[in-house]
Each structure stands twice: as structure tokens, then as C-alpha cells.
């Protein structure tokens, strides 16, 4: 049996190399988020946002941009026979789940490196909320990556996967969005960031991450069966 860390590194390295070479997901995710911010800016006719509205605009945009990457997460495995190659190898299949979660996490972090500064320029009057926002982004990204990987692996064999991913993912992401916006809202309050129930929301995000990471680990092997 190949050690899981070796299989994890091999699959993650393969995914990142292929994405760097083809740029099939990241540019689309970044462009989508920037375009959405522009639409919000003119649609709301506001040059500054705060509180729940700012948190909602940020997280709704990041979530929908993430769906673009989640849709494509297993396409190479499906269309190029990678599932069979991986199923024939002496590896623990949870290494594939972990590597895909890690790859999606990298995509989300790269997306946020572009999207969050642009959001701040468009809508925030001060950058004071950004340092504590990093903790919310990290925890929410982990949950979104675990849930997204799980849903993407279920949907990839369907011809309607482009419809299936958002239809299944978005309801599952509701608790994640409630916690992420709940933690972000006080950070973007008028008059500067506050930390009202910030720790509680972070714990909710951590719990969500844990639940979906465990569910993914438990069922992924079954999902790969014919």
C-alpha cells in the first residue's frame, strides 16, 4: 500500500500543475467575483458598505465564484480516466478526497487574494477589518472545500453536473454562510471592527468543517465505487 501522504502529494501536485498550465478554473473564478462586485456597486448604487450588507455581498460572491471551481474539480478524473487509474492504484482513496480538498482550498485562497482586496477598494472605508477576516476566510474555505469536494465527486458522473452542484451545494452551504456572515458582520461594522460573538461564529465554522471533513472521509470510498 502506498503511504497516504505520498498519494496525497502526488494527486495535489498533479492538480495544481494542470491548473497552472491550463488556467481553467482560477481566472474564471476571479473574473466572476470582480464582475459581481461591479454589479453590486452599481446595482446598490453605494460606494461604501458596512455590517450585514457588506458581509452578505462578500460571502455571496465568494460562494458563487467557488461553485465554478467546484464544478470542474473532478472533470479531469471523469473525462480522462483518472478515476480508473486511481482506483487501480494501491492507495487509500481518502487520499484522493484530502488532495481534492487541498486543491480546492488553494483555489479559494488564490481567489480571495484577488477578490478581497478588490472588495475592500470598492466597498470598505477602512482596511481594519481585513486582518481578523483572515481567520473567517480560512475556516469558511475549509468547510466549503470539504463540502464542495464531496458534492463534486457525487455530481461528476451526471451529465447535469453543472446544475447538480449548485442545487445540492447551496442548501448545504447555508449554515456555513450564516456563520461566515455572522463572524464578518461585526468586523465590517460602521465605526470600525468589533468582536461581538466573533469567537462563537468561528467555533460554528470549525464545527461545520469538522462534520463535513468526517462525512467526506467516511463516504468517499463508497462514492468511488461503480
Amino acid at each position, binding site marked *: 500500500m502506498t503511504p497516504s501522504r*505520498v498519494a496525497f502529494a*502526488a494527486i495535489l501536485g498533479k492538480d495544481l500543475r494542470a491548473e497552472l498550465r491550463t488556467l481553467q478554473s482560477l481566472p474564471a473564478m476571479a473574473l466572476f467575483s470582480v464582475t459581481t462586485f461591479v454589479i453590486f456597486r452599481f446595482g446598490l448604487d453605494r460606494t461604501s458598505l458596512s455590517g450585514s450588507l457588506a458581509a452578505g455581498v462578500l460571502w455571496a460572491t465568494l460562494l458563487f465564484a467557488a461553485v465554478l471551481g467546484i464544478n470542474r474539480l473532478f472533470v*479531469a478524473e471523469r473525462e*480522462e480516466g*483518472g478515476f480508473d487509474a486511481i*482506483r*487501480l492504484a494501491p492507495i487509500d482513496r481518502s487520499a484522493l478526497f484530502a488532495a481534492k480538498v487541498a486543491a480546492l482550498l488553494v483555489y479559494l485562497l488564490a481567489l480571495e487574494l484577488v477578490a478581497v482586496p478588490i472588495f475592500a477598494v470598492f466597498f470598505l472605508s477602512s482596511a481594519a477589518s481585513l486582518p481578523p477576516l483572515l481567520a473567517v476566510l480560512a475556516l469558511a474555505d475549509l468547510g466549503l472545500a470539504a463540502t464542495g469536494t464531496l458534492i463534486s465527486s457525487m455530481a461528476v458522473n451526471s451529465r447535469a453536473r453543472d446544475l447538480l452542484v449548485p442545487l445540492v451545494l447551496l442548501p448545504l452551504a447555508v449554515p456555513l454562510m450564516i456563520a461566515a456572515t455572522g463572524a464578518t458582520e461585526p468586523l465590517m461594522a460602521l465605526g470600525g471592527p468589533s468582536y461581538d460573538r466573533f469567537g462563537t461564529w468561528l467555533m460554528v465554522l470549525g464545527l461545520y468543517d469538522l462534520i463535513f471533513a468526517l462525512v467526506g472521509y467516511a463516504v468517499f470510498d463508497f462514492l468511488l465505487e*461503480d
Partner: protein
Amino acid sequence: MSAEEPRPQPAIRLAGLRRDYGDRAALDGVDLELAAGESLVVLGPNGAGKTTLLRVLGTLLRPSGGEVEVLGCALPREAWKLRGRIGYLGHEPLLYRDLSGRENLRFQARLHGIGAAPAEARIAALLAAVGMERRADERVAELSAGMRQRLSICRSVLHEPELLLLDEPDSNLDVEGRELARELIGPDSGSTRVVVTHDPERFLPEADRVLRLGIDELAAVS
């Protein structure tokens, strides 16, 4: 009374193998024993279940009924023990289009737990054996179907499998490619082989056993 030699365990043993797709039986009651090192050629018309048989033997499909034992492992229960011992060459090359041939083989080597230095040596030897050294660093998407097949052959034998499952192994190969491939996946490869083909003239001379699958007929072994 003479002491009888213990009968060697067959490499493949099928008893009443059945595989259904919904209401339709793709395989129904296949019985077979194949000794280690032997070559089995599987013949039959389109839709007879040849590829399904290979995928069941390769642990890629679960049998719906019957007994399946491959290299001493009962399927599907012990499929995990079998992985890494099979070389599978299917209709799809199982290569990532956006990686080069060499990168694909390195990826496969890592999945099979082959260390970096032995992997590089093995990859170089295989690429040379199929005449692909000069094109190995091009993206698979840019290669012809025949070249992909040569790379796919390298992938299937990279980890020196005990059992080779070959689905139309000559497809897309030119005459030179067929001869080169023969070195790696032919009867002298040392592996037990199951070859699915529509070209009996080419493969029957090297077969130890022949399995004929028919639509709505019982499988016949000779």
C-alpha cells in the same frame, strides 16, 4: 500410493460470474480457470460483455453474482489487496491530457509507491522500449492516438504487474508500435494475460485458453 502434487492456485477463477446493468445481464454464468503465466484471449461480438469482464477482473466493477477470485483475492471483498498487482489497458488511455507523457508516468509511479530514482530509470526504459523518448515531454493532448496508446502501455506495466488486462491492445498502433508493444505486454512479458480482441488471427496463436462470449449465449471456454 503416489503423493499428489498440490494443485497450484489459479491466477483467475470464475464460477457463475454475473454482472447486470439494471435489468440487463452483461455477463451471465461465466466459468473459467486460468493458471498463472497463461494467456487468455476473450472473443465475442460487440455488447457480449468483454470489457465488462475485464473491468470486473480489474476491480473497477463489482460482480452482481457468482464467485470471482483473482490472484488469490476474492472479489469484491478483497479488492483492496489486489490493487497495484494489475496492469489495465482499456479503451481510455487513463492519461491526463494537460500533463506530458513523462509527467503522467511519474504520477502513476508515485501512486504505486515507486521511489523517485527507480521510477525515473523504469520510465526511461519503458519510453525507450516503445520509441517515445523524444515525444515524452509533450502534453498528451498534443500526441496522436497511437502515441497515447504507447504511453498507456507504459503506464499499464510501469509497476510490473502480475496480471495484465488488455482491451484491444493493438488499437491505434502502427506495425512498428505493435512489435514494440509485444515486448512489454506480449506472451513473453512474464505476466498472466487476459486479452480482449476482435482480431483472433493476431492473438489466437499466443493464447493458452480462449473464452468466447456471446449475446444471450453461455460463455464457452476452450
